[in-house]
């Protein structure tokens, strides 16, 4: 099966992104494809490059990067939701005249069309949120 995942909540505050991560790992272990993970609403906050979680806790952003790298998952951060919440890549930062950018490598910023496309192309589009 070809899966798309939609993540609507940020790291640590809600379990949604953790559940999605465990699901993705299990799907891959079972031989399925995770085609795209789309970060929407507060979900865009998972893409921050600036988090320093406690040593004995999970690092959500990095776990996703590793999983995506090893399994060729397309990780897309919604541009409109990201702009509202202060997540920028280098291009956006320049375009908006901001002094820096904070999207971690491995995540890319794009439009909601990427979510719709996932809905069209995937066998299943699953939502994880609050």
């Amino acid at each position, binding site marked *: 099966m070809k899966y798309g995942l939609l993540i609507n909540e940020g790291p640590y505050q809600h379990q949604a992104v953790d559940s999605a991560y465990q699901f993705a790992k299990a799907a891959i272990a079972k031989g399925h494809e995770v085609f795209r993970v789309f970060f*929407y609403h507060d979900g865009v906050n998972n893409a921050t490059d600036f988090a320093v979680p406690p040593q004995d806790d999970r690092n959500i952003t990095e776990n996703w990067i590793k999983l995506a790298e090893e399994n060729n998952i397309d990780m897309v951060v919604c541009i*409109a939701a990201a702009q509202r919440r202060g997540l920028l890549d280098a291009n956006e930062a320049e375009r908006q005249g901001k002094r820096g950018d904070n999207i971690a490598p491995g995540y890319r910023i794009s*439009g909601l069309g990427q979510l719709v496309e996932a809905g069209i192309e995937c066998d299943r589009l699953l939502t994880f949120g609050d």
Partner: protein
Amino acid sequence: MSEPWEDEVEGPVKKFMFVNRKSPYGTVYALESLEVVLITAAFDQDVSLVFSDDGVYQIKKGQNTDGIGMKNFSPTYRALEGYDVEKLYVDKESLEERGLTEDDLLVDVEVLSRAELADLMDDQDVVLSF
């Protein structure tokens, strides 16, 4: 928000249903759901909207947000027709629990029972709930 037509793709038409269960303003889900609806329509997909539970309040007439410093986005529901989004369904029981009737709503909708909504949901390719 990036323009819907920027990343439009050609391809198959799938049935997308959006289940709106949350009141507006208290959380952003109603507003950001609407953005996905518009993009999905721009991709020429078959779009249905369901308003149930507190989601029925999204299309309550007479919203006036002057006092809370937030934008009143309810006129956008009226604009859906222009995007060829015409399948709007409302859960009868949710209306009744809230003492509302069709006259209280700012768009034309079809009021359905939960059994009818369940049949409709069962017939979808993608169901998204915000």
